[in-house]
């Protein structure tokens, strides 16, 4: 039983990180039909933001938000420089543009920072465990779960209570009509990118805090997983992305924990089989929605 609860915490923590990343992909996709493969670089940027803030002597508690801000700024910059000029273009054009952005940023990281992993000094206070009702919880995992919940609640409030949030939900259904309300298309798109940067930044910081190092390719694998999660949930559906993220996280953690040792190396294969099964049953994803992407 203890073992099960322990794994549950692991699954919530990993699934939450996937959920944040998948949500960032979905927010941008729902607005402009772009699958942003440079999303992983936003995570990496947050990691380097953390490292350099600490090197500059910023206290850890302030370096965390600074790292997230780096990811937000990079996301907005990406939109302004690369994606604005191809807005409304075909899905293929958008996809190839995002591959290019991803490759360029990765090379910049490799050449101007370091191709090798750089260590992040995580304060001792965070690397321990706490005991709650006989359970040993990793502090970082506990924080990660709490932060994920806070982000999901915050984003939900933003989308339902503010003009820009409502405009984003409306734009996901019919962008042209949102412009007929006098709402600037550029503001809506820039906000979507800023939110995706925020989510990737937070996920990046949580990821780095667990691994203790940053390297230029760091974002690739988690964002690939997040992309799978977003597909399971139904691409463009925000609640679908969150559901997909948790489903994938749970699957991975429980396969890891309960598969016999001889099958462990097939863990990812089993996870992907599950994804295929879901898509056979619901080709549009679990929480599919109709998307109209017209600018």
């Amino acid at each position, binding site marked *: 039983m203890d073992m099960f609860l322990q794994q549950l915490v692991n699954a919530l923590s990993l699934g939450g990180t996937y959920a944040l990343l998948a949500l960032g992909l979905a927010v941008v996709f729902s607005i402009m039909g772009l699958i942003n493969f440079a999303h992983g670089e936003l995570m990496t940027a947050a990691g380097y933001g953390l490292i350099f803030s600490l090197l500059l002597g910023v206290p850890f508690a302030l370096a965390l938000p600074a790292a997230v801000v780096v990811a937000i700024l990079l996301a907005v910059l990406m939109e302004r420089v690369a994606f604005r000029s191809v807005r409304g273009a075909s899905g293929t054009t958008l996809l190839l543009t995002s591959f290019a952005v991803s490759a360029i940023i990765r090379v910049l990281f490799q050449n101007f920072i370091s191709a090798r992993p750089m260590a992040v000094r995580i304060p001792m206070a965070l690397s321990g465990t706490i005991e709650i009702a006989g359970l040993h919880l990793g502090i970082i995992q506990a924080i990660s779960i709490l932060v994920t919940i806070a982000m999901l609640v915050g984003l939900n409030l933003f989308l339902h209570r503010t003009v820009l949030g409502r405009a984003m*939900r*409306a734009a996901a259904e019919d962008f042209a009509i949102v*412009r007929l*309300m*006098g*709402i*600037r*298309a550029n503001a809506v798109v820039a906000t979507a990118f800023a939110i995706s940067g925020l989510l990737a930044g937070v996920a990046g910081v949580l990821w780095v805090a667990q691994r203790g190092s940053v390297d230029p390719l760091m974002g690739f694998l988690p964002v690939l997983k997040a992309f799978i999660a977003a597909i399971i949930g139904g691409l463009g559906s925000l609640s679908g992305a969150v559901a997909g993220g948790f489903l994938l996280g749970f699957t991975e953690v429980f396969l890891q924990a309960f598969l016999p040792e001889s099958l462990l190396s097939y863990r990812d294969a089993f996870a992907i089989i599950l994804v295929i099964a879901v898509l056979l049953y619901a080709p549009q994803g679990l929480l599919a929605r109709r998307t109209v992407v017209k600018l």
Partner: protein
Amino acid sequence: MLLSLNPLPEAILDVRGLKVAYGPVEALKGIDLSVRKGQIVTLLGANGAGKSSTLNAIVGLIGKKAGNILFKGRDVASLSPERIVRMGMTLTPEGRRIFPSLSVDEHLLLGGAAHSSRSSIREVREDMLERFPILRERLHQKAGSLSGGEQQMLAIARSMMSSPELLLMDEPSLGLAPQVVDLIFDLIIGLRDRGLTILLVEQNVSLSLEVADYGYVMANGRIVLSGTADELRNSTEVQGAYLGA
């Protein structure tokens, strides 16, 4: 009899030589039309004549076009829809295009997003809810759950939330039951009586000539006929093609 001495009201919209092409296909081949303040002007024509393209180009949803679109004396042909809406012109699009998962109230609040203060949004919203009592009853329902007629009223109310001086309406009666069509037309007259200027595209030719002051007939991307509503109603072309006489 004094009426004849009144000069015609000034034009709020003046379109000159408007051309639009979709790839190699010319949808509009040089449209000239003007809409005078306080009037209802109707744009008639068969499917594919270019009526919707004309409205979409005027309000800025079609970016690539040639010609001049003078709104309140200023050329808006190169402006974005959001700029044009903030200047006081908007469009109630064909097919209603409501946001299915947003509530009725959210539509109204978004529609008023261009207002500078919360209090003026609240004021216009209250005005709309008085004009459309059914929307007050449905205020927190998702728009996707409304009937066709209710969705059309919501689409009009959403447009009116930006307090436009000129409203373009694309097929407001399409697919609605006859008594609902009457309701929508009563509403259009009511809006005009309140000082709103309307450029109306409608399938229902006899009804739209009944409410309109002036009309244009389009065919194959051109204006082929224009005149007062009475002149058009009595013209043999319009009678033959649209009124089934």
